[in-house]
């Protein structure tokens, strides 16, 4: 029995992903937006709220205004949200709040970036290193992988996770991606391939790290009465939650316990469900360690259990918790804030029964999680088939 809901995702779409020569950041925004609007059966003029994120290739302090001008729309509400990898989920939670408060009827959530072809790989790596503290981390040559590697080393030390356990996350993602015709990575990999890939920041190797991609994604979040006319079944936003504990890893309260536990508990509580009720999970996987920590902190697995379970197929279709069924950031695509929206788009497709070869049979409840910074900002969502 689905809890009473007041906001739902009525449109969800993403562009092609991967290497998209000739694309522009705003062009991908517009393409994703129009696809999501068509999915929701709406015209651009019917949107009264717009939420955008941020861009590395076309940065601007007012990205929502830039996007609305580009698309030629004049909504009565617009804002840009920057919460790193949590942005997609935070935008969905904010859109939910806007329609539940009666401030908007249809909120367009959109993010895109062309950081694969729009900038050099070196420039992308350097820009991402800016997440580090400018005086107390960046001078030591940190990268995002290095900052997550510090978590991985501590987590392996405390809970006995192994490199094989981490690799199982990458293999599970690739197994799913092989079923998605749009995924950026379509070559099968085994545990040994992950372990033998080029070291990036020990213990993380190349295949422990997410992709760099071009692409965009968008959602339409509608109030319940406005969702009635949607051509496809709505994905109800049943519960959401957030927790921020730090920004920089030097200031994290712990290297092994993070805010995902509280953000997920909040989302489950508001939805009135438990982790064991979830049919399909789309959980932020910027690195293999990110996913492992989150699966064990959110309550899907006990500490030390996610790795062995993943090795035994728990994250695959038919497993205990089909997870990142599109292939995730590790094998589907990662283009900035759109990366987190890909997880949301996939959750909607699963709840609608549109996921084709990767469909989780009878999926009624989905869990989506985003994390930004170095496991700093967390946002969790529970979605249900409306």
């Amino acid at each position: 029995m689905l809890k009473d809901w007041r906001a739902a995702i009525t449109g969800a779409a993403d562009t092609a992903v991967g290497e998209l020569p000739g694309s522009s950041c705003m062009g991908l925004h517009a393409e994703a937006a129009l696809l999501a609007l068509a999915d929701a059966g709406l015209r651009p003029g019917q949107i009264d709220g717009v939420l955008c994120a941020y861009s590395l290739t076309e940065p601007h302090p007012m990205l929502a205004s830039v996007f609305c001008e580009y698309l030629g729309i004049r909504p009565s509400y617009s804002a840009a949200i920057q919460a790193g990898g949590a942005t997609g989920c935070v935008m969905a939670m904010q859109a939910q709040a806007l329609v539940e408060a009666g401030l908007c009827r249809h909120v367009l959530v959109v993010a895109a970036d062309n950081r694969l072809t729009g900038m050099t790989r070196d420039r992308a790596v350097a820009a991402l290193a800016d997440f580090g503290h400018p005086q107390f981390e960046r001078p030591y040559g940190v990268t995002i992988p290095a900052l997550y590697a510090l978590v991985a080393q501590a987590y392996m030390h405390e809970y006995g996770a192994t490199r094989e356990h981490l690799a199982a996350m990458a293999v599970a993602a690739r197994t799913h991606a092989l079923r998605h015709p749009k995924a950026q990575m379509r070559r099968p990999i085994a545990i040994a391939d992950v372990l033998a890939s080029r070291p990036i920041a020990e213990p993380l190797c190349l295949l422990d790290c997410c992709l760099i991609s071009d692409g965009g994604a968008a959602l339409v979040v509608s109030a319940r009465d406005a969702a009635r006319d949607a051509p496809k079944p709505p994905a109800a936003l049943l519960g959401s939650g957030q927790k921020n504990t730090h920004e920089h890893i030097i200031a994290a309260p712990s290297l092994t316990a993070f805010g995902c536990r509280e953000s997920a508990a909040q989302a489950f509580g508001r939805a009135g469900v438990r982790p064991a009720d979830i049919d399909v999970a789309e959980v932020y996987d910027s690195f293999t360690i990110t996913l492992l920590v989150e699966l064990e902190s959110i309550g899907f697995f006990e500490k030390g259990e996610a790795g062995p379970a993943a090795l035994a197929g728990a994250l695959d279709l038919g497993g205990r918790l089909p997870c990142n069924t599109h292939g995730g950031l590790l094998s589907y695509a990662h283009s900035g804030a759109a990366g987190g929206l890909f997880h949301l788009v996939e959750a909607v497709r699963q709840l609608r029964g549109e996921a084709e070869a990767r469909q989780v049979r009878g999926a009624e409840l989905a869990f989506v999680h985003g994390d930004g910074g170095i496991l700093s900002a967390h946002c969790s969502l529970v979605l249900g088939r409306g």
Partner: protein
Amino acid sequence: MSELQARPLPVPNADTAPFWDGCARGELVLQSCRQCGTAQFPPRSLCARCHAPAPAWRRASGRGRIASFTRVHRPPSAAFKAGLPYVIALVDLDEGPRIMLALRGKAAEAPRIGDRVKVGFDPPAGPHGIALPHALTEGP
């Protein structure tokens, strides 16, 4: 020098200048709250625990334990290529706060979580004379 080649040295501000002045003298200094006594890092204009203003600066022992570490093989920019691979650690100082440091010498060879280290300083560099702290194996 292009943006990708410049080493990102700290630019001290009102919150951090006493820390970097200490490093240039060869001393590790930390903030300590005048009200609740909590030692904190990174430096701030107030105590992040009780929010009392203007924490006092105190000389720290410069000793602590490795809380985690990573050997970096892919640097953020060309400026760090010459030192590859290099080891970055999070160190829990004996006073309580956690700090990031580069591991040097024997400390970088086969580090383990829990290893004791002591702080040393690079020669001052750049327009602000920054002497970056690093960590060495704690001697007798």
